[in-house]
């Protein structure tokens, strides 16, 4: 009997798996498919669950309240990846052709390593890769990277906004001369990405640029902060990630460095980054292309139609309006607006990847449109074009008051004209190495 049960259970599991591989049932043809490479478990789960909850809540809102995007319903499927690159690649391969006839118009990588890994596959398969606030910086140049979209804010703009905010506090860019700005960075690809633009900005504005690396994961940072203290900096730019952020804030407090002189980067500015630091984080500021808070117009709509009806993907409603949840909302909203843009050219039908690229390249979200969709203050105005795949390049600055983020400034624009030559030089080097012929953007 035991054997029988054992056998039938294993047979059932086997059969289920095989059927799953062969055909996944039920789906419609007149739907827009959106693959989601989620990470609800693993080391980044605490941010991943909120990110995808925000994204799914908005998609659900569009489907159920607005009846889809111009009448085209959205269909999404998740694959759990634990934020590991090879699993994200697998997810991409699984769903790049769409799902039961519903085509894929774009793919959220939400991981800089995955954006790199998929770069050439996306080009070959004609699937736009969306990585808001991350991605390969030089892929801002859409003439060389037609299918990569480091939307909103690339790493160079993040450095520039950081410096511009410091100038604002000091009373002008000319006041930066002679100041000491220390960058404490996560010693990884992400952390080192801003070294080029920082050196350029330091040369231009005459401040002293000191770079201090923190090795991954950054559980112990005393030597680094001793070094920071010796440098007696005027400002500290904290470009850490994960556990290294709260540890950095706490260690800085231990060394007597004032927390209101520390400016966190985009990925060092969520609740998960400051809550573990406790009281030491009160007064900490961070760049926020994705501000936290649940008082924006869209939150009221979501609360009414999704959250209060028990349809939210959030397990714990206390996280409604947290930074990562809002990141999800913003990504979903940009994608939905891109689809709308595409519908105006191709008609109200599901778009494929090539049409998706056209849609993203002609995306133009102005202030009035932001107000209509309820994202005023939460999202910056965004305008993309053929050789401009970033679009925004601005961030607000938010400050932690000990229990929540409050917005300290309006949108601060990066000095993108100054940094663009660096990006063009890098993309040209890429084009040369790979023998890519840049598109002629005057024709696109």
């Amino acid at each position, binding site marked *: 009997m035991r054997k029988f049960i054992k056998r039938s259970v294993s047979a059932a599991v086997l059969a289920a798996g095989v*059927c799953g591989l062969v055909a996944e049932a039920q789906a419609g043809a007149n739907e827009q498919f959106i693959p989601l490479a989620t990470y609800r478990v693993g080391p980044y789960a605490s941010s991943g669950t909120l990110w995808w909850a925000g994204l799914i809540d908005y998609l659900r809102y569009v489907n159920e309240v607005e009846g889809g995007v111009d009448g085209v319903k959205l269909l999404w499927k998740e694959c759990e990846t634990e934020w590991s690159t090879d699993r994200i690649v697998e997810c991409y391969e699984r769903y790049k052709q769409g799902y039961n006839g519903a085509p894929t118009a774009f793919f959220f990588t939400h991981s800089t390593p995955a954006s790199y890994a998929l770069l050439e596959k996306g080009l070959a398969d004609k699937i736009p890769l969306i990585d808001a606030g991350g991605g390969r910086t030089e892929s801002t140049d859409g003439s060389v990277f037609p299918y990569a979209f480091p939307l909103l804010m690339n790493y160079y703009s993040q450095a520039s906004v950081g410096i511009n905010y410091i100038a604002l506090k000091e009373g002008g860019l000319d006041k930066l001369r002679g100041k000491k700005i220390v960058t404490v960075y996560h010693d990884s690809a992400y952390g080192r990405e801003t070294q080029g633009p920082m050196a350029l900005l330091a040369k231009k504005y005459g401040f002293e640029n000191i770079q201090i690396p923190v090795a991954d994961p950054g559980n112990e940072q005393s030597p680094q902060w001793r070094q920071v203290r010796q440098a007696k900096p005027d400002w500290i730019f904290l470009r850490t990630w994960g556990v290294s952020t709260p540890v950095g804030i706490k260690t800085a407090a231990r060394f007597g460095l004032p927390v209101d002189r520390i400016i966190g980067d985009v990925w060092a500015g969520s609740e998960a980054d400051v809550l573990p630091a406790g009281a030491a984080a009160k007064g900490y500021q961070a760049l926020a292309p994705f501000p936290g808070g649940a008082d924006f117009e869209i939150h009221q709509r979501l609360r009414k139609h999704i959250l209060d009806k028990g349809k939210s993907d959030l397990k714990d409603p206390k996280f409604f309006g947290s930074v990562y949840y809002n990141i999800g909302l913003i990504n979903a909203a940009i994608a939905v607006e891109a689809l709308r843009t595409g519908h105006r050219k191709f008609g109200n039908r599901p778009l494929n990847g090539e049409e998706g690229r056209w849609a993203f390249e002609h995306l133009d979200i102005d202030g009035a449109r932001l107000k209509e969709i309820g994202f005023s203050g939460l999202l910056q105005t965004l305008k993309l074009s053929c050789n401009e795949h970033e679009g925004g390049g601005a961030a607000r600055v938010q400050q932690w008051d000990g229990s929540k983020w409050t917005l300290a400034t309006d949108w601060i624009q990066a000095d993108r004209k100054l940094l663009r030559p660096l990006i063009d030089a890098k993309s040209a080097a890429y084009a040369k190495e790979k023998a890519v012929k840049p598109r002629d953007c005057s024709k696109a």
Partner: protein
Amino acid sequence: MSASIHRLPAPFDHAPIEIVGRRQPWGLLALLGVAFVLLPLLGGDYWLNAILIPFLVLSLAGLGLNLLTGYTGQTSVGSAGFMAVGAFATYGFLLRVPGLPLPLALVAGGLFAAAVGFVVGIPSSRIKGFYLMVTTLAAQFFLEWVFVKFPWFYNHASSGTISAPRLELFGQPLGSAEGRYLLTLGTVLVLTWVAVNLVRSQIGRNWMAIRDMDTAAAVIGIPVERYRRLAFAVSAFYLGIAGALWAFAYLGTASAGSFDINRSFQILFIIIIGGMGSIAGSFIGAAFISLLPIFLSHGGQLVFGGSLDAGQVQNLQKVIFGVLIIVFLIREPEGLVRLLGNLRARLAVWPLRF
């Protein structure tokens, strides 16, 4: 007098070792035919790119570790470090030596990894077991650090990421899924053939003697230390080539983060589950470990629809792996390959067992 000697009973009426008769390799040929002809024709992009290529590369990596751990008895958790060396070295050769054909660059990358493996293996002449494992752990972290710290290795790219140069073989571009699949398959086939012959040769037998009892091996005249270092070098050669294929044929890009300690553990699990000291075990283990997550994720979606959290399926998979590893270590240290062997032996006499 001499007659009494003849009357002594022979200790065994047949040789104590089982001599496997030379079978006609029809099954193998059929498998190769399917792998080389049928799969590229029938398998879509998804199967080739997302399932078969990583499976083959992981098999190769498992094979490399099996030579060190399964055949020579030296546990290593530095496999991913050697893969990184192979990937970065191959990239460096392709980038800095113009006109170098791809197979040569792969071999050069593998040799470079072998040299590093040899250096890491030097302590094996003095220490063994747990302590040796810790030195490989150190090597893993050191190599990861090296490929983050020194921008020269990744050609000063802004993100520390290397990307595949144009893959070509004799002027034929290998950029398509089929091309990359055939490149991987060809490499794995050649290296497996080499490994099979290696473990059946004097070297392989010496390795196994050292694994079974190093003192006895030394007594019968095997230079134990030299063969241990050799095992490290050969294993690193295999892992290096696997790393280069992982970076260029599968992901198309790599950074030090792609070869972290988790990858090392994954490869160790492959040989624990598949079977230590077995070439086929590396393949079976790799198939299991790379296919089970995908299988579960598809199956979970079908059975539970949207009602089950994708994250829960992932946790389930961790539980299954954990349980299997414990079960295999306790009940069947020879892994899946042994279970399959038992099954075959039973089926051979079925239904007349007696």
